[in-house]
């Protein structure tokens, strides 16, 4: 089994090389002439007002939470999807029930207006 992951390990090294090589090359070759004017943050030509780390809407958090719910659900369903065709019918129904419960939750969230962009 670990034999199979040898290639993943090798590709890991290649990917690390591909990720670091171009910036390293650029670091060697590029000119370095810093000037305070150059390093101002870009904000349509005017000097930035306030700090960039402003507070964001809780809405984003809800979408991330919904995503996590579906992610966990997928991890449960992958083994089931792999095997259900060789199992009795109730096993299929169990998985479908699992999904329908989630669909119900999604419809509930929709009905309550949590999916609206405000």
């Amino acid at each position, binding site marked *: 089994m670990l034999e*199979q*992951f*040898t*290639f*993943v390990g*090798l*590709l890991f*090294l*290649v*990917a*690390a*090389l*591909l*990720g*670091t090589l*171009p*910036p390293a*090359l*650029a*670091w060697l*070759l*590029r000119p*370095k002439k810093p000037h305070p004017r*150059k*390093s*101002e*943050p*870009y*904000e349509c030509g005017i000097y*930035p007002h306030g700090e*960039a*780390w*402003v507070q*964001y809407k809780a809405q*984003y958090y809800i*979408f*991330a939470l*919904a*995503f996590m719910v*579906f*992610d966990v659900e*997928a991890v449960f*369903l*992958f083994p089931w*999807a*792999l*095997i*259900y065709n060789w199992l009795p019918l109730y096993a*299929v129904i169990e*998985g*479908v029930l699992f*999904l*329908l419960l*989630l*669909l119900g939750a*999604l*419809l509930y969230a*929709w009905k309550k207006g949590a*999916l609206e*962009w405000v």
Partner: protein
Amino acid sequence: MDWLTRLLAFLSNAIVNIGAWLQGVLTGWGLPEPTAHLIVRAVGALAVGFFPLVVVIFLIWAYRKIAARIQGRLGPNSSGTWAGPWGILQTFADAIKMIVKEDIRPQGIDPVPYNLAPVLVVFASVMLWAVIPFGPGGSLIGTDLSIGIFYIMAFASAALFVFLMAGWSSNNKYATVGAFRAVAQLVGYEIPQLLAVLTVVAVAGTMKMQGIVGAQNVIFLVAMPLTAFIFYMASLAEINARPFELLEAESELVCGYFIEYSGMKFGMFYLAEFMNSVAVAAIFTTLFLGGWRGPWVDQAPILGTIWFFIKMGLVILAWMFIQITLPRLRIDQMLNFNWKFLTPLAIVNLCVTVLVNKGITEAFPGGAPVWTRAGILLFSNVLTVLVVWGISALGRRREERRAWRVAQATELEVTA
């Protein structure tokens, strides 16, 4: 004629034969068998890793050329400085320019995450290629992991935080807004993509990439067009293509999360974006177009690789046409399309497909003929689309009637 037959035999399975030849040479030098094998695998890993890079170099050129032609421009060409015939070397010139550009770091950045993000974004998109099958057998795929497609989904999902890293460390409001939007979009569209992948896994009965290719006696695009549609739309959003190009939104966010990057670091994000497009095309080919399968693959395995590239090229071309033609959605439209259309549709599609597939297995104890299974699945897909369309039409009519009633009521009030 002996050499010709030998040459043809070599060419018919060229990649595997080159690997075997290399292994032979290495053992001939007196290296032990496992070491030689490891070196051959390492060369394979280098090839797999550099493959998307090479494709992307020409893809960027092709993209610019096609976009220009569609919009009635010339695109990169040879006038001015010489960039090869039809400007084919333009991307190399761009790459060299990016490498020798001065790197401008805005004040107040968070240096370590800021510099790490472009590295990680390319790293993650190279890692996806480990399980893509380029041809039949065990040698033309990096490694045929038992978790196959789940490995890809895991790496794609794990790389999401890099966008937040880039946006947050840039000390720029545009970048932070872009990062937030990026994650809201990518996170959302991963759900229908996952559910579509689950549908494929359920019908194929395996997560191994070669197993999924092997299960497609009838390609899944024909058997399950709805699943393919869901996957394709979600993938378009995942690779940040128009109409889902909100995270970049050049006209509002001036590049989104990587606005403050310059030189090669900017180039890394650009590169990763194109690499992901190629990866998604390869995944779509494997999941829905039968991967390397095609005529005469049994006789000459190299043909499988060629079929794979042709199919992948067609998927990329479809992506380009959509990307070049369509305008961008608003963020609320984008979120609505995902949460109120694609995700419920994907759940219903998964339930229906699983039940129908199980029904077919039960109805044909000796194993269903492939075309019967595909036909019934296709029919169930069409039925699902019709029912969903009917429900949404009903919902729309109710909405309209409510709006009309509200209008009537206000009119009465005004007249009273």
